[in-house]
């Protein structure tokens, strides 16, 4: 079946512009996660959705970052006034029921490679 998809696969933007990254989770998965993979920085957790609500936003790096999820499905991660340090691969993952109560396999998408010039 279809896995997690993300768009665009690559994005180049100028410093100061806003960007919007999209994630389509696996159908029926209630939990959705955003991570960032920066060169030399490892993998960072950004935000987690259970349905449409985000119980954990602790990883968002600054108030320029926001995310929403509507209809319990598609999520968008928005970065306003992008900076060069925002350049990274942004990864989205989904899982069937989420992290509450028990752990589940998270299925990752291919990522969006963002380059801020």
């Amino acid at each position, binding site marked *: 079946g279809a896995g997690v998809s993300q768009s665009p696969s690559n994005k180049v933007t100028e410093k100061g512009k806003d960007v919007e990254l999209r994630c389509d989770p696996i159908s029926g998965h209630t939990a959705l996660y955003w991570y960032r993979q920066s060169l030399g920085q*490892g993998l960072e957790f950004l935000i987690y959705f259970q349905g449409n609500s985000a119980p954990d936003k602790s990883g968002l790096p600054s108030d320029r970052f926001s995310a929403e999820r509507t209809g319990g499905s598609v999520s968008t991660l928005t970065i306003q006034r992008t900076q060069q340090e925002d350049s990274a691969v942004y990864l989205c993952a989904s899982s069937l029921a989420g992290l509450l109560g028990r752990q589940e396999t998270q299925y990752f998408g291919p990522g969006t490679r963002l380059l801020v010039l």
Partner: protein
Amino acid sequence: DQQVKQNSPSLSVQEGRISILNCDYTNSMFDYFLWYKKYPAEGPTFLISISSIKDKNEDGRFTVFLNKSAKHLSLHIVPSQPGDSAVYFCAALILGSQGNLIFGKGTKLSVKP
């Protein structure tokens, strides 16, 4: 077969001492390892990650060590605090078009004052 194993279901440590939480894995293809902390009735929160090309990553009181030859990683918390009492989950990830994050079963840490 479990790919990520946390063989100690519980650990008790005195406040101020070091807590060492262990995790073993079987798949040498994992790209990243992550640790999460979970309080009762709450979802887990991400703590720290390490890339498979590194052997150590430190963030404040938390340090994760990776021994690839032994397929073993550990999370060190020093000094331990009562607020660290929670369940700690180890997870491993293979990146790619259908990369999966696979969790261990967790270790319950109790830090006694």
